[in-house]
């Protein structure tokens, strides 16, 4: 998760003069074209999940199912335990996200508002881990998690991800913008540092927290390599993305396209739904000033 929650426009679109010029018509066509191409694979995925097995194998390809049916979806639940997989995915994503928010707030606050020796050096060191692809540490990390006796369980998946450099970076950027007077006032009133952080500072950076929530949740919901390595065949601990690969070997693969697409549709739903909900937060207030520099 090395990406910045940058995001969107800070001000709402002004009502333009809607003159239908050639330019605006061309632009509209372009916008529609790009949107269609971007949406096409997902649309194909959903449509195929509603087709019969014969329709999925048909040459030339059939685009629209003659009579859409949910057969594939009920088959999916025969092959993998959907409820259990979703639960596992949710546990992994939620626990990690909550932990990341807490640890990032705490560390970000310290970097933004405290003075101490080696502050910049430590920050730079932590930040450098943002640029490390997970594969580089996979092998020893796997053994370390083994020493902690966490392999094969959801905790093994979660524990190495409870803190994240990007989250710290984001929180530091935004907490910098919180007025010192606010913090001093709370301290003068006798609040402990934790209180100050969670009751005063956090509410002031809610948009950043919303952004971090979205990214952490989606990243860990979709995460494949690490859970695959740690869970070692413990199928009832599998998150939905790994359970999907079991669909591939169903029936030695013959005529399972619809099944696989149905499973993929199910896996895609939660992140996309969450995105649609939280997207509003960005439009309302996340400033791209977080991206500067």
């Amino acid at each position: 998760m090395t990406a910045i929650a940058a995001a969107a426009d800070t001000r709402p679109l002004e009502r333009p003069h809607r003159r239908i010029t050639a330019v605006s018509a061309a632009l509209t066509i372009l916008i529609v074209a790009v949107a269609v191409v971007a949406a096409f694979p997902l649309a194909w995925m959903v449509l195929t999940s509603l087709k019969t097995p014969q329709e999925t194998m048909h040459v030339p390809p059939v685009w629209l199912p003659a009579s859409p049916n949910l057969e594939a979806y009920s088959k999916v639940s025969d092959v993998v335990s959907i409820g259990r997989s979703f639960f596992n995915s949710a546990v992994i994503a939620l626990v990690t996200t909550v932990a990341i928010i807490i640890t990032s707030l705490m560390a970000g606050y310290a970097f933004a508002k405290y003075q101490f020796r080696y502050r910049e050096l430590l920050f730079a060191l932590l930040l450098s881990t943002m640029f490390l692809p997970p594969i580089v540490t996979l092998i020893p990390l796997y053994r370390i998690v083994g020493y902690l006796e966490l392999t094969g369980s959801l905790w093994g998946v979660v524990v190495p991800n409870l803190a994240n450099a990007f989250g710290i970076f984001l929180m530091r950027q935004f907490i910098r913008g919180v007025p010192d007077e606010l913090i001093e006032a709370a301290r003068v009133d006798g609040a402990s540092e934790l209180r100050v952080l969670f009751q005063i500072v956090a509410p002031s950076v809610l948009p950043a927290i919303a952004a971090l929530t979205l990214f952490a949740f989606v990243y860990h919901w979709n995460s494949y390599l690490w859970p695959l390595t740690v869970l070692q065949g413990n199928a009832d601990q599998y998150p939905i993305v790994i359970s999907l690969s079991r669909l591939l070997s169903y029936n030695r693969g013959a005529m399972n396209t619809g099944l696989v697409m149905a499973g993929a549709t199910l896996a895609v739903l939660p992140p996309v739904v969450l995105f649609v909900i939280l997207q509003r937060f960005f439009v309302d207030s996340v400033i791209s000033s977080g991206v500067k520099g």
Partner: protein
Amino acid sequence: MHLLRTFARAAGTAAVLLSTTALVQAADVSFLTHWGPDTVAKLEAAAAAYTKDHPDTKITVRAVPFGDLLTTLRSSGGGADGATIAGIYDAWLPDLSKDKLVAPVPDAIAADTKANWPAGVIGAASIGGTLYGIPNEIDVYALNYNKKLFAAAGITDAPKTWDEFLADAEKLTDKSKGQQGFGMINSWAAGVLHPFASLLVSNGGELVVDGKPTLDSKQATETFELYEKLIKSGYSDPAMATADANTTGPFLDNFVSGKTGMIIMANWWESALKAGMGDNFADVATAPIPVGPSGDTARSISYSWMTVVNAKASADEQKAAWDFLSWLNGPSSGPNGASAMGDILMSMGILPSRTSDGAAFKDKLEGDAFLKGYTETLANAKGFPVVLGGQEFSEALQKTLEAVQFGQLSAADAQKTAQSDATEILTRAAQ
């Protein structure tokens, strides 16, 4: 401050609690397999029947896709948390036993196993005379062909020699229809290697003798050249040969839809063919591998699977595991004197290797025209080499053969590379 400490402590306690392997009550046996859900259900039913009579043994099945099976085994190796029982492919045994991940079969059960299985599979399941697993599945390769396409091309019988094979491939190739005479396979190790190896042994050659690769032999030269000819003449189209991670894909689709005249494949793909072809499955026939110029009789490649037990599991778990396996593979667990394992395998269209299972399922086997072509070949089949470094050896040879398929390497260069790679890998692994 306090909040933090409480949180940390709670998390730590929860971690310990949730991660510790469940409170062991007697023996917790887990069974790792690559089987699909239908088959897993059958295995679980057998396990339930066993547990009824042996209530102190709890058996859970862990299924992973075939592509992940070896990785799962290896990543869980070195820990008591790994699966107690695993179904493994015989080529993996030497490396697993070298890393001390598998336990030898207890003497009593070993004696019984040796008495009830053919020498070939016993050999594949042993290292230096010690038996490490109970064999179950045996797979062999045969020539599959499309009778309809044969008739349309005016061919009456399956080719018996390489010359006939090449002639038939030419007749069956029709670029305008997108039809290829002989289908190769790529992007999947077994799919690339085993058909090649089958042709090699049918030409009197071998892959490995006494631990040393023999890919520089005259018989191997002829086999490499056969492949080169098939590609150069256009009788095989590599773009039609792709396999997905789940061992299906275009190579299967093309045979199913009648775009491939002949292909060499294993018996277990019968269910995929039936599912894909429906009624047209009746057009499929099987025959022994064509004999090469340096060969004397039709031979084929076989390989087997077996169940092994995790050497790092506790003594109780290991004992419970062997007892269960002995029952599962024994004549009392399945219908009509067959074993439950044999029954499970037959449901997938796979040949069980236990001698008594062969007898128990005789009628079914003989009645199945598709499988008949395979059971006939079994007698003359050579096991795919089971050596240290076997997996790496396979993958290296796979890449070389794929290079030949895509015209990136000549037969001569491919042979040189294959032999030197194999020598280097096998010597390194033997250290």
